[in-house]
């Protein structure tokens, strides 16, 4: 009996000892949260003409220690203000001050991204921290000149996650840092969730910065990024896909062409609506795609890769503009499906031709050749540049099928 008690006490003593040991540990890299400047968003523009004059001699002395021979960039950051970020739905303007700024937007100029960050760090007390970086907005003008430098900087930084969104903006990227949409207290988070939700609703393929990097480095594929622009009320619209050749942006699609991309890749859920004419074109039916499936086959015909795209979409009927033709039998539904197949095929042809013209294979057809026809790849392609050349002239077969599954709650 007594031994048992003493064993128990020993065990208790040990536990207390062990727990107190854990209190004694420290951390060399300890950094209080208010000592860090948490960067939520970054935007990059090409700098204005007068930027040179604004640049301070932080990373190099003017004229003596040569600056990189790159055009100046203007970099803006959105830094979270400690204590102002609402942690839950309950905390909203509790002190009655109403709309409080949650972030601080700063901008600097520099020759490279790191140079600009250095210039920024010079004017901020806390250490810049990129662990929560969610969005990077790059202006179209800058992206067309090439974003190797930006990619390199983010790739090297161990704090940056691969799940951040990189996007291309129409017009000035800085505006996206300053815009304050009403739906979300933190603007950068709103931008990120705009795209996250677009993925969830089948309006954009999941394309985080990590995916973009993987796609651009592949030999048989090029990268693409969301193309956004600011609308009325500081809102953001996803208005297409900016497609790349290497690190240079070469073109942009229309928003509906994103649906074409999703059809080719067979990504579900589907989220786009389409308009179908039936009868003598006076009646239109709006359809809503729900599911997509696809398969791409490659074979070599006359020394050139030839792709067969087999895609299936399932659609629901959402509305019609007049009552001339009732949708009450499967014949009509089949007719609608045929019409839809035709319009999807046209969409695909247009989209693929657009990318072919710029030699930007954002679909990864080249990867299919590399994977499935290695001997052809070895003797004819081998490099990304060569694939771009070939991609311009490859041929496609489209086998699009479409099925109307549901017509909603109305009987006719």
């Amino acid at each position, binding site marked *: 009996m007594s031994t048992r008690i003493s064993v128990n006490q020993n065990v208790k003593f040990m536990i207390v000892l062990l727990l107190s040991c854990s209190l004694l540990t420290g951390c060399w890299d300890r950094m209080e949260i208010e000592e860090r400047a948490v960067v939520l968003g970054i935007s990059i523009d090409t700098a204005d003409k007068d930027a040179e004059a604004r640049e301070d001699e932080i990373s190099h002395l003017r004229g003596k220690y040569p600056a990189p021979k790159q055009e100046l960039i203007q970099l803006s950051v959105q830094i979270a203000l400690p204590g102002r970020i609402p942690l839950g739905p309950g905390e909203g303007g509790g002190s009655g001050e109403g709309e409080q700024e949650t972030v601080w937007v700063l901008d600097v100029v520099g020759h490279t991204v790191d140079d600009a960050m250095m210039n920024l760090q010079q004017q901020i007390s806390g250490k810049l921290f990129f662990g929560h970086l969610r969005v990077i907005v790059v202006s179209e003008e800058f992206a067309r000149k090439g974003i190797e430098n930006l990619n390199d900087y983010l790739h090297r930084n161990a704090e940056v996650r691969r*799940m951040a969104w990189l996007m291309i903006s129409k017009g000035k990227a800085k505006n996206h840092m300053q815009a304050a949409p009403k739906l979300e207290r933190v603007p950068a988070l709103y931008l990120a969730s705009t795209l996250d939700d677009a993925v969830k609703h089948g309006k954009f393929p999941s394309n985080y910065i990590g995916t973009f990097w*993987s796609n651009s480095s*592949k030999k048989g594929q090029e990268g693409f990024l969301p193309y956004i622009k600011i609308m009325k009320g500081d809102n953001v619209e996803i208005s297409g896909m900016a497609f790349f050749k290497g690190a240079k942006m070469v073109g942009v699609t229309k928003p509906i062409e994103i649906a074409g991309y999703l059809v080719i890749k067979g990504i579900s859920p589907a989220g786009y609506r389409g308009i179908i004419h039936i009868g003598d074109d006076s009646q239109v039916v709006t359809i809503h795609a729900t599911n997509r499936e696809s398969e791409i086959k490659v074979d070599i015909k006359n020394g050139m890769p030839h792709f067969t795209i087999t895609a299936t979409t399932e659609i629901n009927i959402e509305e019609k503009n007049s009552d001339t033709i009732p949708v009450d039998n499967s014949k009509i539904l089949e007719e609608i499906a045929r019409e839809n197949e035709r319009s999807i095929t046209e969409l695909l042809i247009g989209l693929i031709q657009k990318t072919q013209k710029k030699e930007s294979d954002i679909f990864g057809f080249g990867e299919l050749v*590399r*994977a*499935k026809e290695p001997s052809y790849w070895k003797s004819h392609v081998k490099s990304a540049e060569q694939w771009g050349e070939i991609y311009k002239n490859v041929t496609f077969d489209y086998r699009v099928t479409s099925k109307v599954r549901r017509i909603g709650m109305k009987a006719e």
Partner: protein
Amino acid sequence: MNEQRQITVTQAAAVTISTIVGVSVLALPLAAVKAADAGAPLVTFLGMLLAFVGLFFMTRLGMRFPNDSYIEYSEIIIGKWLGRIGGLLSIAFFAVLSSLVAREFGEVVVTAVLKNTPLEVTVLVMLLLAAFSSRRNIMTFAYIHLFYSPFILIPALLIVALSLKNAEIVNVLPVMGNEIRGIPAGIITLSTMFQGYFIMMMVIPAMCKPERAMRSSIWAMLITGVLYILIVSATVSVFGAEETKKLLWPTLELAKATSLPANVLERLDAVFLAVWVTAVFTSLFSCYYFTIYSISKLFRLADHGMLSFFILPFLFVLAMLPQSLIHLNEVNSVISKFGLLITIVYPGVLLIIAKLRKKRGKSK
């Protein structure tokens, strides 16, 4: 002596597994894609086969001399002085290997996690940990490995499984890769990633049934081989071969890009690093233990405990010699290729000579 002969087949396998899985896990996919692009999983598999040849030689030798240590029976087989030179070379190799493991650990920690902590501190802490733990006898050694091996295997498999939702099969096709020329050199590089299997040498004389040693060798190789192939396949199928080539530590990047379902954890690199630190500790522990154990056998010492702190300063200085990570990797690849002589060629030669000279140890 009797309490020294208790290691079971499972324990022996666990020791080998947790020794092999170590610091190299982080750069493993990089080495594989450098050799064979999309054929990385195949190269890993072939590398495993080559490593198994070495392990096979070692295990057969060990089973032939179930009572003697590596150092002792190499003296029996090829004569006292040649055997001692062989022993000395292997001791030097494992000493250097443990210092390189400690250094690489330090480099990863300083680059990716604790940026302000001095490199010397992380390296020294790891070496101290190994030094403290290796003072005990071989049973404790086996128990420590057995205890940690599930903590290495299960989370690693979990990360691989979770990352597969971003995987694309096209990335790992064609199976042979697009450039076949790199494969032979790749097999050699990849087999060095399995070098930890040498620990079987030390374990066999302490097994209660040494005649079953081959069984643990096969299991250990199979499990680590499958784990490595899975890690390589997952990394390459998520990132693609070209992107993997751009990443210094692709496995860490994989963990960073993987999230738990429902975003409970948005990135798993913290989990992965915890696993990895354990894995590094167990491999370093083995290298360290092997070094001092062999020294004690070479000089016919009764106990190896006192050596554990004696070699610490030497290893620490060795670890600090490489100037940068790139330099470290260059040194590492030279050393580990040299290691192939010690872990595959040398035991092979010993085995053949032992057969020719009909040398055999007493059965226990």
